């Protein structure tokens, strides 16, 4: 297949241009564990330096990839256990470039995690105006049983200025996957996963599946369908 390779910086310029409530509000990232989803999310956050950002990290144990460098521990959001109303505007400051990034972390008590995440999603639904990062949306939807709340937030989109990034290792049980205006398909294992990736891109056929199956870790196919688009591209480092 003739898919042009494009540097990540060039693709991020395009993302910055179209990513917003009025155009393409949501990203969907699909790739297996180790494919570079979190790294790509961090790249996407690079175009949101002034925005209010809430990262939902449901993993039972802290993921070191979200830790900032020495001297800047909250580069990727300040880890918190609860979100308060009007976070970022009132109360405790956050992390990130402008102190508006927060990272709600999960814990080993899944029931408690589900309650805290449900409360955070309720605040997001009420207030809007946030870039919402759902790192491993399948865990949030299926294990924490918050699929309907995720659906509600995704439906807000344009009306309440909610922009979301959904990352998933598989597409089943994933709310809002049909609303991904920008789709990133990365490294997967096995033909079924490659087929699922091709379907997310709107592709059908053996050659397209093989293209998805051949993606290496930290290599992505980016696709969007906004006016003026140039079709999918393979994102290179």
């Amino acid at each position, binding site marked *: 297949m*003739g*898919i*042009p*390779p*494009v540097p990540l910086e*060039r693709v991020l*310029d*395009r993302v*910055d*241009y179209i*990513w*917003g*409530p*009025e155009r393409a509000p949501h990203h969907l990232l699909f790739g297996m564990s180790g494919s570079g989803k979190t790294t790509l999310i961090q790249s996407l956050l690079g*175009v*949101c*330096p*002034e*925005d*209010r*950002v809430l990262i939902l990290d449901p993993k039972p144990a802290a993921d070191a990839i979200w830790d900032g460098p020495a001297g800047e521990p909250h580069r990727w959001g300040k880890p918190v256990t609860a979100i308060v*109303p*009007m976070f970022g*505007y*009132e109360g405790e400051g956050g992390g990130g470039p402008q102190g*508006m990034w927060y990272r709600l972390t999960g814990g080993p008590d899944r*029931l408690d995690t*589900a*309650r805290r995440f*449900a*409360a955070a999603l*309720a605040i997001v*639904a*009420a*207030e*809007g*105006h*946030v*870039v919402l990062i759902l790192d491993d949306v399948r865990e949030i939807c299926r294990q924490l*049983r918050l699929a*309907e*709340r995720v*659906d*509600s*937030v995704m*439906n*807000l989109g344009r*009306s*309440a*200025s909610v*922009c979301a990034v959904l990352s998933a290792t598989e597409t089943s049980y994933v709310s809002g996957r049909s609303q991904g205006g920008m789709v990133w398909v990365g490294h997967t294992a096995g033909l079924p996963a490659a087929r699922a990736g091709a379907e997310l891109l709107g592709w059908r056929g053996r050659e397209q599946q093989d293209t998805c199956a051949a993606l290496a870790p930290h290599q992505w196919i980016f696709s969007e369908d*906004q006016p*003026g*688009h*140039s*079709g999918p*591209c393979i994102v290179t480092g």
Partner: protein
Amino acid sequence: MSVSPAGLRTCGREGCGATFTARRSDARYCSDSCRNAANRARSRSDPIRSDRITTPVQVVAIRTPVPPLAWEPASERRRPWKVNEPCPGCGGPLYTSGRGTIRVCLACRHRVTPPGVSAPYQRGGQAVRQVKSQRERDLEALELVQQKGVMLHQLDELAADDRLDPGSRPVVEWFAAEVRAAKAGDRLTELAGLLPDAGIRRRHWWQGEPAAIEAPDDDVDQGDDPDDDGDDEDPGAWPAPVSKAALPDFTAELAVRSWQFLPHGTGLCGLIHMRPHGWDVQPSECINRAEHLIAGGAVCGSCFDALNRPMR
């Protein structure tokens, strides 16, 4: 292989070097084993037999120009843009940038909380702008239809009563029309509260004038009326589903099942199974989505179904 003047030849296999008398003019090896060994060695290391290539062949690649794959969508850098929201401080226009999650007033020179963020709390609610899922909307619609059905059934019975005062009949019809047109359960609750004050009257055989039908008083035991033939129930009594006080009470069933009910208002089922499946293990808290209201809170569909199947 070499040929000696006396007709003797030297074996062509590398490493052999034996001389032999050729029986054929093209013989090159001293024995069959040497021929086979030489052929095997040639096929492994030299697939193209150099001794058969007489003239070098020059291969010229034909290059067709391949245009580079283009990927040049519009990607202008975003600039801050004005939004249709006034600054709460000076009333001037607000600007936003990036993904549109912040607001800045250029006149006041500081960041402003977007009106949409503070609006839910200024209105006194916790989640005024709540987008419901399709399932939630469907469940609410079904509950509304059920409430309407019960109320309309009782209004129809009332309208079919021959003893209904003629002046009350249009009132009953008006109530029926309002129930049919109601779009939410709150409207049905309003109508239920209005009915006792609507002055609907029923004429008794001993009454010269129609008697006003009073709202039911739960606190007063009116006793048995010897003249009561049992068919003149108070038409002001509305069906149970519209009354919050009439929510099903499963206190006894909860006790039988060793379940605790701790509603927490997060939209999840509030039941704790103290002995899950009858085992003496850690209590298990149900975290399914709450779908049914019962006295004191809400429970999920599966727990609600279980409570409606009494244990013996």
